[in-house]
């Protein structure tokens, strides 16, 4: 019995066979305009409550704060100056020199009818607006290959769908909250409050109250052949939905393209199946270190070390048995 998902991919390992391609998102933050349509479309489709006290949160234009029980798409806003941009460019460049899977052959295929000037390898002049930048990025559940929340769920409320996504069955979940502590990205959360309409109809009952809640990759749309609400609405297609393999390939070529244009700050997040969660179903193109966006730099699914943890628990149990036995042996009357 494997604790972690094997080479057949997460859906196959969860009993689904190979009928469906694994689906996912590619979020290209370099073309995000921070409009938050994804947040709204998500809430509209899923009828999720609003978040917060209707007060400015103090984080640029971000007033929903973070992913949580009610907000399944969250747009981060980060304002940065020159020094930080240089650092980001440098750290991106370093990733290349680390000898990681390198950038593929240079291609300018996406350039359209006219070549936009010669961008040969020597010309690494970074693009304009170098003094300041405003990063925007739409975050979402990662739908990990090895999903902590799914692994620790005691009720089977969380399951791996045939699309490889990780979905909570809100009719099953009893709100134990274990999954919340097992998500390395801080995505899943128990819905303990929230209302869609702040003034009217406060009594309106949300039948999903008290259960764990997060992005379902719009499972209830995928079964009908529709794409998720957020990617469908994204004006600039910063969010795209599709087969995971295709998206990862797109992501790689996009990052190569940006590097070629001198934007060495570009990097992918979640596209490496060898990482601590086995790669993510939602892949991101970031323009700075992950932590700048509130993402963990080296997430590890807890299940990875579970055998060792269990072994420790076993030894401890054995030790307790021994201690009790010795106590009785040591206090013979």
């Amino acid at each position: 019995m494997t604790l972690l998902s094997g080479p057949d991919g997460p859906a196959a390992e969860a009993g689904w066979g190979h009928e469906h391609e694994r689906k996912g998102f590619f979020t290209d933050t370099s073309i995000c305009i921070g409009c938050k349509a994804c947040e709204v479309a998500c809430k509209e489709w899923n009828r999720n409550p609003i978040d917060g006290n209707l007060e400015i949160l103090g984080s640029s234009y971000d007033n929903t704060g973070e992913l949580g029980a009610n907000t399944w798409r969250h747009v981060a806003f980060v304002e940065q100056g020159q020094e930080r941009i240089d650092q980001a460019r440098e750290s991106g460049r370093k990733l290349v020199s680390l000898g990681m899977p390198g950038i593929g052959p240079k291609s300018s295929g996406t350039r359209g009818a006219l070549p936009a000037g010669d961008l040969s390898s020597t010309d690494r002049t970074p693009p304009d607006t170098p003094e300041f930048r405003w990063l925007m990025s739409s975050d979402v559940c990662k739908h990990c290959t090895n999903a902590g929340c799914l692994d620790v769920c005691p009720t089977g409320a969380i399951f791996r769908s045939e699309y490889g996504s990780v979905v909570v069955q809100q009719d099953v979940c009893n709100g134990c909250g274990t999954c919340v502590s097992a998500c390395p990205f801080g995505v899943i959360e128990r819905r303990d409050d929230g209302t869609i309409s702040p003034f009217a109809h406060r009594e309106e009952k949300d039948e999903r109250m008290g259960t764990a809640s997060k992005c379902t990759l719009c499972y209830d749309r995928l079964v009908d052949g529709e794409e998720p609400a957020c990617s469908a609405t994204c004006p600039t297609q910063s969010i795209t939905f599709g087969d995971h393999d295709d998206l990862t390939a797109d992501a790689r070529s996009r990052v190569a393209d940006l590097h070629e244009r001198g934007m060495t700050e570009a990097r992918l997040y979640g596209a490496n199946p060898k990482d601590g969660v086995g790669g993510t179903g939602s892949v991101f193109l970031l323009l700075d270190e992950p932590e700048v966006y509130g993402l963990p730099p080296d997430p590890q699914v807890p299940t990875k070390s579970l055998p060792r943890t269990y072994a420790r628990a076993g030894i401890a149990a054995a030790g307790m048995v021994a201690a009790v036995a010795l106590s009785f042996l040591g206090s013979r009357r």
Partner: protein
Amino acid sequence: MSITDLDADRPPERGRRRRRRGGGRRRRGLHEMGMGDGSREGAVVEDIEVERADQFDSYYGRPVVKAPPWKGPIAIYLFLGGVAAGSSMLAFGAQCTERPALRRNARLTALGTVGLGTLALIEDLGRPERFLNMMRTVKVTSPMSLGTWIVGGFGTFSGVLGALEVDRMSGQRLPLGPLRPLLGAAEGPAALGQVVLAPVLASYTGALLGNTVVPTWEAGRGHLSYLFVSSASLAAGGAAMVTSPVAETGPARLLATAGVVGDVVSMHRMKESMHPLEAEPLETGRPGTMLTWAERLAIVGGIGTVLGGRNRWIAAASGAALLASSALTRFGVLHAGLESVKDPRRVIEPQKERLAARRAAGISDDSITTVG
């Protein structure tokens, strides 16, 4: 800056209200309210201001991972589960070594604590009426799932044994009817089952907390089970010292003493193994205070047990101290964990360090961040 005399008529600034959700989680501290440059913020965690570290990046100081929605009842469960586990083992020993009072009291303690503990566990669910959904599956990847089955089994055996003891105490006046012989026949198997499950019950909670990404628990992954069985031992010993006559509590005192030693040692070793940022919540704030007192009470209780354990009053007092120590340990560890998520540095710094260490060691193909 006062420009007109009318300034005096302005209403006072509203205090910054906290966000409704997330309980006491604070969305921003003073530093984060800087320039909106989210990339470069010192973090302010509740009540403790951490100085601004220039090397540190986070998103407005907001947490990276979330704490589980666990509150007091979970700490109570951890505590009571430990007492139940230890008590049942004492009861089994007492049964084998014919210490009837200890056996009876320990069995009743086990039943009472496991029962209350289970109620506490249910109480903490978001949808308590769906408690039985825990029994839908058996998931090896879920300590909570396995734990549920352990508690379920242990509770059942405890029920049988507890019923027997009550029946005996009441001079077989329980309206058991034809069940009485069955119950009697079940005593052996039930006691055996109970004692098999007990140590696992005491130790699995370490895996439950350890198998998370909550920084302090995650870092304590390798030690929490040791700490918890020790705490269970000293608490169960303490409980026996409170409930049972000194004549029969010799093993309990020994177990308690061993527990104290294990408790103190494993806590220290756990902290030593941690990144300073991960250990910090165990040493500071309310959890730190609780854990300091837990240690003090354990030592006091331990000394009392060793030196005055044969005196009924000193034994009882020491037992009470040990029980309190165990409860504080559980509360302390729980809250230290909950506290540890509030500062994103506790997640980011150790992760960056381990990533850097792997890279330094030549492993560079397992990063979540790539360029191709």
